[in-house]
């Protein structure tokens, strides 16, 4: 096990650098780079990483994102606003580079939605790493609320190292009004139900993405982040 570099919880300043960090991780780099594109929840993602002893840095520099050894691609808010920012800053292409390099990548919420080809929120094109679309969640039952907000059961559809700790009745935290609709069922790793059953975790090879928020899902969510930090980028 590499020695972990402790960072003070809640540090206000941005951690700068990969070069020092790299020296601490000569063979097995656990440092997580978080893509900073003003999409909101990256601080809570970093706090969750701090809590489980994972060093995480956030950056809005596309070159540094492109060189990441391990990447979290977060997001809350509006998909089109997020995508426009990713395009104008070059960060979207930087994320694509990391995916192509085969490094472990974790998308969260809007970050997961933009993994697909398009989103109805806007509408906007997505980054298109996986075939499929993000669609508006429509539920017929008037007692079911939109957004889908709160704790819901996650059903694992096929084994994945990042979900291996989940038990059948475990619940994770969601807040969203659009849902993931990947074209290939082989890309669906977990589903949940809110009026209808839909995908809440998808992935392929070194890419994994969740509609739920691991950083707000208590100990089960923290465990997922810890697993991501140790993941070799292979789906099984």
């Amino acid at each position: 096990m590499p020695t972990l570099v402790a960072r003070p919880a809640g540090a206000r300043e941005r951690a700068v650098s990969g070069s020092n960090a790299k020296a601490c991780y000569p063979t097995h780099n656990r440092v997580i780079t978080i893509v900073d594109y003003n999409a909101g929840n990256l601080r809570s993602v970093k706090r969750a990483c701090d809590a489980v002893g994972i060093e995480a840095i956030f950056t809005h520099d596309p070159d540094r994102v492109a060189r990441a050894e391990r990447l979290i691609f977060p997001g809350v808010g509006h998909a089109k606003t997020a995508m426009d920012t990713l395009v104008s800053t070059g960060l979207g292409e930087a994320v694509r580079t990391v995916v192509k390099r085969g490094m472990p990548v974790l998308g969260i919420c809007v970050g997961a939605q933009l993994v697909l080809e398009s989103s109805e929120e806007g509408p906007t094109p997505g980054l298109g790493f996986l075939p499929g679309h993000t669609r508006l969640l429509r539920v017929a039952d008037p007692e079911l609320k939109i957004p889908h907000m709160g704790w819901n059961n996650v059903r694992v559809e096929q084994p994945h190292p990042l979900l291996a700790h989940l038990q059948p009745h475990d619940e994770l935290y969601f807040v969203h009004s659009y849902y993931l609709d990947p074209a290939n069922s082989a890309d669906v790793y977990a589903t949940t139900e809110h009026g209808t059953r839909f995908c809440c975790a998808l992935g392929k090879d070194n890419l994994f993405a969740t509609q739920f928020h691991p950083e707000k899902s208590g100990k089960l969510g923290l465990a997922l982040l810890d697993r991501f930090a140790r993941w070799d980028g292979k789906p099984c």
Partner: protein
Amino acid sequence: MLSKRIIACLDVRDGKLAKSVKFVDTKDIGDPVAKAKQYYEGGLDELVFYDITASSDKRAIMLDVVEQVAAQIFIPFSVGGGVRAVEDATSLRLAGAEKVNVNTAAVQDPELIARVATAIGSQSTVLSMDVLRVAVSGSIPSGYEIVIHGGRTHTGIDALAWARKAEALGAGEIVVNSIDADGTREGYEIKLTRMIADAVRVPVIASGGAGKPEHLYEVLTEGHADAALVASMVHYGDYTVAALKDYLAGRGVKIRRS
């Protein structure tokens, strides 16, 4: 299927738990961070801090509390009290609050809801409303009126109309706090909660009156609430969050127990 949520509310003044809340485990008296952590470890679904700091110059203390809590608990938590401008909401979000509650300032300036929702997203914008039962009249057809300043000032605004308007302006969730029931520990205002919950599409949190586990059961079933806010019944040590969850699950309410 979504679980019904149990949300604990802590009143904070000048960065400390308000004196009105007397805790049994004395070592935690005054420290909202320790109390938050205890509830988190006990399986709480969500947390609300209500800042009742009177002087504006001490408001920064709340941001420190929020930062400390955000570093230690990994469930959603919201902060309310004294949010008057978009800047108040964005600084609370940056400090680590998942959601921000607006109340009095939104009544005085409804567009504040829209501005906050634009800045931090509807999913993070919560309208908290204090409601008083009144006689049905032309201006208050529902028989429930919005009050502000902790219930001291009538507004002439109908609670049902206000809930619908707040939703249209971008509130992603509504806390319905019954001034009549608040502090009685005799149960939530079921009729009011159900009326609002049925009128809006966003989740509704029932607040005020919780004293027994049956009260949570009533408001989460008959009252159509998505979540129940608890305060003194857990603060005083009469019930633990886990015991409330066991009770609700035993009566068939879908509740998170992982």
